[in-house]
């Protein structure tokens, strides 16, 4: 089995990791780095549960080979909180009911973060569009839209302060 040793930058930290060359970013995150906050629902790029940010863009980590990620900036749900304080998106998901079973939550949060990083005041239609590749079977999405709106509001207030 071909293995490769590589340095990956995950949540701002450089990590040296040895993995089989066929492994996806999802598998390396979960199985080699024990970052199990990123979930899988299909491993075929259909559900969005495994979304992480690579260089700030939402990427389906089940479709991305870890090999392709050398030197790139990878962000996962584990890197979202600010120390012990929740990121406004995390707090809003918890407060608004944006997370029921929690399985799609990591992918939703990272996708929403990419949106708010670019568009601090998205319309509800934009929010719906941005997360349309992330499936959720519990919430019916509405409380997720509300959570993203609440987080956007708080982030804008923080930015002004």
């Amino acid at each position, binding site marked *: 089995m071909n293995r490769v040793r590589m340095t990956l930058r995950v949540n701002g930290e450089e990590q040296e990791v040895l993995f089989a060359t066929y492994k996806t970013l999802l598998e390396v995150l979960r199985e080699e780095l024990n970052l199990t906050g990123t979930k899988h629902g299909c491993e075929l790029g259909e559900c969005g549960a495994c979304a992480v940010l690579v260089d700030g863009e939402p990427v389906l980590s089940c479709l991305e080979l870890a090999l392709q990620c050398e030197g790139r900036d990878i962000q996962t749900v*584990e890197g979202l909180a600010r120390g012990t304080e929740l990121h406004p998106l995390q707090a809003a998901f918890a407060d608004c009911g944006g997370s029921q079973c929690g399985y799609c939550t990591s992918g939703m949060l990272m996708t929403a973060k990419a949106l708010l990083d670019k568009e601090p005041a998205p319309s509800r239609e934009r929010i719906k569009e941005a997360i349309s590749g992330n499936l959720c079977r519990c919430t*019916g999405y509405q409380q997720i839209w509300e959570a993203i709106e609440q987080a956007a509001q708080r982030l804008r207030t923080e930015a002004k302060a």
Partner: protein
Amino acid sequence: MNAPGKPPAKTRFDTIGKPRRRVDGRAKAIGELRFADDLVLPRMLHAKLLRSPHPHAVIESIDAARARAHPGVHLVLTGDEFPVPYGIMPVAQDEHALARGKVRFVGDPVAAVIAADEHTAAAALELIDVSYRPLDTIASPEEGLAKPEPRIHDYGEQGNIHRNQAYEFGDVEAALAKSAHVFEDLFFYEGNTHLPMEQQAALASIEGDGKLLLASSTQNPHYLHRQLARVLQMPAARIRVIATPNGGGFGGKCDPGNHEFVVAKAALVLGRPVKICLTREEVFYQHRGRHPVLMKFRTGVDARGKLTAVHLQTLLDGGAYGSHGPASTFYTGVLTPVTYELPRFKFEACRVFTNKPACGPKRGHGTPQPRFGQEVQLDKIAVKLGLDPAELRLSMVTKPDSLTASWLRVGSTGLAQCIHKVVEMSGWKARRGKLGAGRGLGLACSAYMCGAGVSIYWNKMPHSAVQLLLDRSGQVTVYCGATELGQGSDDVLASLVAEALGIDPGWIRCVTGDTGITPIDLGSYSSRVTIMMGNAALQAAGKVREQLAAAAAEQLNTLPERVVFSQDRVFAGENPGNTMTFVEAVALAETKFGTISAVGSYAPPKAPGKYKGAGVGPSPAYSFSACVIETEVDAKTGWVTVPKVWIAHDIGRALNPVLARGQVIGGVYMGLGEALMEEQAFRRLPPKLSGALVHRTPSILEYKSLTSLDMPEVEVALIEDPDPNCPYGAKEVGQGPLLPVMPALANAVYDAVGVRVDEVPITPDKVLRALEKKAKGELPRVGPESFPAVPYPQATFVLPPSEGGDGSEAKEGRKAA
């Protein structure tokens, strides 16, 4: 003073009713919550299942020698290692962890490989040589009725009929003959699946003391525990099942799964941890979802449209195994008389085995199908008689504290309020029929149970139990076997105990779903957890509170019954300045009584019906819902858009409105998926390939479900009329709100374009076909055209309460009544 264990009556609440972050909200938002596939143990091996490519075949031989010799393979298991069958219901023990002798559907597990990693296991599956002799297959219940041979199972009623039953409450033919109008309609409800975002996973290991531990994404650790003991032929006390937080269940993780037995057996054989995670395709084949059901409603009404009698016939496509089928069969009828007053009711149901993945319980279990039929038929009745569909329903909602014709006790009901509320919110009176071409409104209602009145296996023990343990630190630990699926059961548990003890829910630690530690709760199914676990929790909290009150009263110079618990403090009711902290009160109680602990348990009240079969349908309480849906139908494409949904749900009391509202919107979401697009449908491969019955769309991409862009805004009203049988009055909300969605949508399509699609999903092709018929002047309807001759048995005849009798079968004098 309260009777021992009786929770304190409260009118003002600290916690309950206030929107609150759920107790597990933080863990979910930071990715900290560990689901089954997130668990890793040293020396862990991985399992993969070899599944049958044939829908029905005799296994002539299995040669696993090459797989066993494959580098990295530790073990190969086949049906030889699993002689004992299992099944969630005692009357349907018809599955083996790995097939023995024959396979019954494409996807039936035949062998398992346990290897160093998943890739090696998958490669070794290819090296197992299985010789099959294909048998004739059964693709539908109609085919199953016509072809008694070959039998898929060697048990059941006859041929390929698994279950067949008939009940009659009062003379239905006589009532129909006297009715002003009789309506006869056929409906079909296609099967669909749960599609939880988390694929089933399980990790088996041997604990330090030699006991077996299975951590699994199961909704029902207790039933799984019993089945493991049976299949593995081990004492249950040497097995521990931990239900990991489920990444969604919706009923799909209720049945014990083949994979769970396989990894448990492998861990026992190898003495090493063994994990499995099903692929998404395997989850589609594991299924246990909504039964496809064909229905015939013959319904009599009086001149004002009120129901006089219903004769309901159902035909269920059961798939290849029993699963919950005996219960599912009942549920395609038994709750029908709960929503509206129905003087007489006849219900015949038949479940047929077919060579497809087994159907089982999905959110609403058996009830969405007849709900769809009845609510669409009521819409037709209203149109025919020139009545407002909302007024027609309001004229006949069941009364509080009444008995149905089938001897179910309806306790509290807020259905009339629900209807008034959705009529008001949606502007029903001003807008229905007046929205212009292609736009319409539809209304439907429903009722659902708050937990099944009897356990899946017969016993008289509690259905739920809760243990509380407090110590001088002020920590309150709550133990219960209930399983957190995302529905918020841990939050319900914490909030009820917090309210009873007057503390913040953040003080409480919930330990749930672990058969090695927690007292038994039957599981997260049948919308039973809030009511049953909740009542058990309040009983335990009531006992603890008495001890705390007795100890605190001495210090506060008051009587125990005057001690008040609120906002983390304990004080004398007559003098709130006379106070101590909750922590101080616990320390005083521990000093006075020793360690502070209590248990509470709950069993539902005895049901009034006495006839055989009366055990399915009774519940401590029923929830009610009403829903209005707005549609826009594109006459050129048949595409149905839903701009808005209004729904009112009679929840008794909303313990945490954020969660309650989330359950309602989530139910609407899942209902819209069933109404518009979701189908677990199968097709035959061409004979030159194999003639196999394969899933049409075993992937998330092709199995259509609503995305964020498809989901309409939902306006939710929670109707709060506390039910005396429920903890602080709280009824269920997990399943009921799904039920009115499908018929409300169908009725809205009719209001928009004047066509009836009498089956779900209501896809654009069906709408177009109905519109074409309308254009040609034909009956503008698409739906089933005929109902086969089903050999239903002679009905068990029971007199309705209004006609005398005592709820027993009337063996004689049926017509004399």
